[in-house]
């Protein structure tokens, strides 16, 4: 799984440009599922029939990562960008990037210190004010079009029990879904919905419940914020890496049903899988639109704590990743025992 996650992390795919991720996942799982299709949003939907086909679980994870998009090309060949998904502007400058389909290497540049007026040095960074230099002579020869995506040129690497890399949000979810689909036989049927366009407003999740039958519940797998510092100060934290996957009780678009919360905790305790709660209520995931789609569907979000999420490099714990896979698989295996009433 680590190798697959590293490949997924190194691949490029922002909202609306998920093809590379989708093709990689198709290659990984095509021999392990009964059907595959791609919907109008670009989400990939795999179906794997289980021993009991009367019960089907909707598994979901989003393929897209946060990235930039070219929205301006200056006469001198410098590029202007907007963000596709949420970035703190401060994390963007002075990074190596790859531009467009040809992955032209470039850099997010700032004027050098010497050329800035003293007050200019103190000014906050805005994405609008950033430029990307790909070394082009001028506009006509730069070989870039408006609408080309720009990705951070981060390569994932393992260091001890940790992985450093980009796009763990939400390639960890994709990697774990692939693991589940690679199981020989599951006791219940599963739809694996690899969502498109989560980072621009949980859009893949809005269509995920439709055109599917006999759904019992949704398990959404995500990456989430980790902030170990608040634990030191004994204040409201979010999650801590190394303490297991985080179960969401409430965030900006879901309040998790207490029955499913109790049920998943009982499974984790029985299987001795470590877990924690996501304790901040900010951020939303595809589980939000999924649980309010149609007549409503119980949904559960389990997320891997990522330090420095939504930046060119994040850090995750490999034991957390393994625990999250174990918990997700146990939830699917025990799906028949879940009761909403």
């Amino acid at each position, binding site marked *: 799984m680590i190798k697959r996650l590293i490949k997924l992390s190194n691949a490029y795919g922002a909202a609306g440009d998920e093809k590379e991720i989708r093709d990689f996942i198709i290659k990984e799982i095509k021999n392990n599922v009964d059907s595959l299709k791609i919907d109008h949003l670009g989400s990939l939907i795999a179906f794997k029939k289980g021993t009991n086909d009367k019960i089907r679980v909707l598994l979901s994870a989003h393929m897209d990562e946060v990235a930039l998009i070219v929205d301006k090309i200056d006469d001198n060949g410098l590029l202007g960008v907007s963000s596709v998904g949420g970035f703190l502007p401060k994390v963007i400058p002075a990074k190596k990037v790859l531009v467009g389909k040809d992955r032209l290497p470039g850099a997010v540049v700032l004027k050098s210190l010497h050329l800035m007026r003293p007050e200019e040095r103190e000014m906050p960074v805005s994405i609008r004010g950033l430029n990307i230099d790909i070394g082009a002579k001028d506009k006509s020869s730069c070989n870039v079009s408006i609408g080309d995506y720009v990705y951070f040129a981060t390569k994932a690497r393992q260091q001890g029990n940790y992985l450093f890399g980009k796009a763990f949000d939400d390639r960890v979810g994709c990697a774990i879904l692939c693991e589940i689909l690679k199981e020989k036989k599951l006791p219940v049927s599963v739809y694996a919905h690899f969502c498109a366009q989560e980072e621009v407003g949980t859009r893949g999740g809005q269509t995920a419940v439709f055109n599917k039958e006999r759904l019992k519940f949704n398990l959404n797998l995500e990456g989430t914020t980790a902030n170990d510092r608040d634990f030191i100060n*004994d*204040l*409201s*934290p979010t999650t801590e890496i190394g303490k297991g996957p985080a179960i969401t*009780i*409430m965030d900006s*678009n879901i*309040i*998790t*049903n*207490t029955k499913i*919360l109790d049920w998943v905790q009982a499974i984790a305790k029985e299987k001795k899988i470590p877990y924690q*709660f996501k*304790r*901040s*209520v900010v951020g939303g995931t595809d589980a939000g639109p999924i*649980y*309010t*789609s*149609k*007549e*409503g*569907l*119980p949904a559960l979000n389990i997320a891997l704590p990522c330090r420095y999420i939504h930046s060119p490099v994040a850090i995750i714990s490999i034991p957390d990743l393994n625990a999250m896979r174990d918990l997700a698989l146990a939830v699917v295996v025990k799906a028949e025992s879940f009761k*909403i*009433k």
Partner: protein
Amino acid sequence: MEKKYLKIFKEFGPSGDEENISNYLKELMKSFADKCYNDVLGNLICVKKSNSKNARNIMLAAHMDQIGFIVTHIDKKGYLRFHSVGGHYPYNQVTQRVIFKNGIKGMICYDNEECLPKLKIDNLYVDIGAKNKEAAEKHIKIGDRFVWDTEPFEQFGNLCSMALDDRIGCLILILLAERLKAAKHNIYYVFTVQEEVGVRGAKTSAFAIEPDLGIALDVTGSDDAPGNQTKCSVSCAMGKGTGIKIMDSGIIVPKQIVDWEISLAEKHKIPYQREVLTGGATDSFAIHLTKKGILASTLSVPTRHVHSSSEICSIADVEATVKLLKVICESEKLPV
């Protein structure tokens, strides 16, 4: 006001934990409905079918959840950090007494004087008087919800409660169900969940019911307190009749419905006000955008100090709302 009605304002039910209030409302409703059930999200749906051949389906929605708080952290000394469930003003929380579902009580305090000018929920904590973390954890878990601990009361013909929003809508539905003997239409009394976090219960219940007409019952602001204390402007004031919604941030009520409601109010001499609210929305927001679109509106009870621990409304306005709603449900023809 009868004790059984006042109890509606006391039952525990912050968004996502509406079990207690749902059970109580079911108790009050069951003799007036053909069937009562809870759906996946927990909405309480009570159906009363009509014998009329031309019966249409009317969904009446009042949300039973109240704004509250959720525990996010228990520190070593046993103090609780928390977040809001629904929209809260941080200043309204200072020194409030609060209560958990299991009866544990506490008090909201702030970190220090420095944080007061720009107070945020993060600067607040609950003191339940626990000796330390372990003692607190015997009774409180992360994710537990709590609400203000205040008693409802009646005074000068007004009603005061921490949960008028929207137990007053629930009361209106109960009073209607008691009085509506032979409705011309099939009435779906829906006590929705999770309105305060984004009209979520109304979204799924409207999808399942797919009514011909949806009416939400909710509070709105009241433009008659000193100073400019509300952030949004509203065209209604307490004591001047039921608010017939024309527009808020979630819905523009179709003109034929507004006109119809006003003509019924005038015909039956029911006091009403035209309501335009610039901030806030109700369950009609979710209902009218369901499936291919559903005609929907809201009747409002003008309320002072909305989202505070003492919201105040006029009982005469509640009475006017019940009367107009009854006339609506008894109308042979709907403008749909």
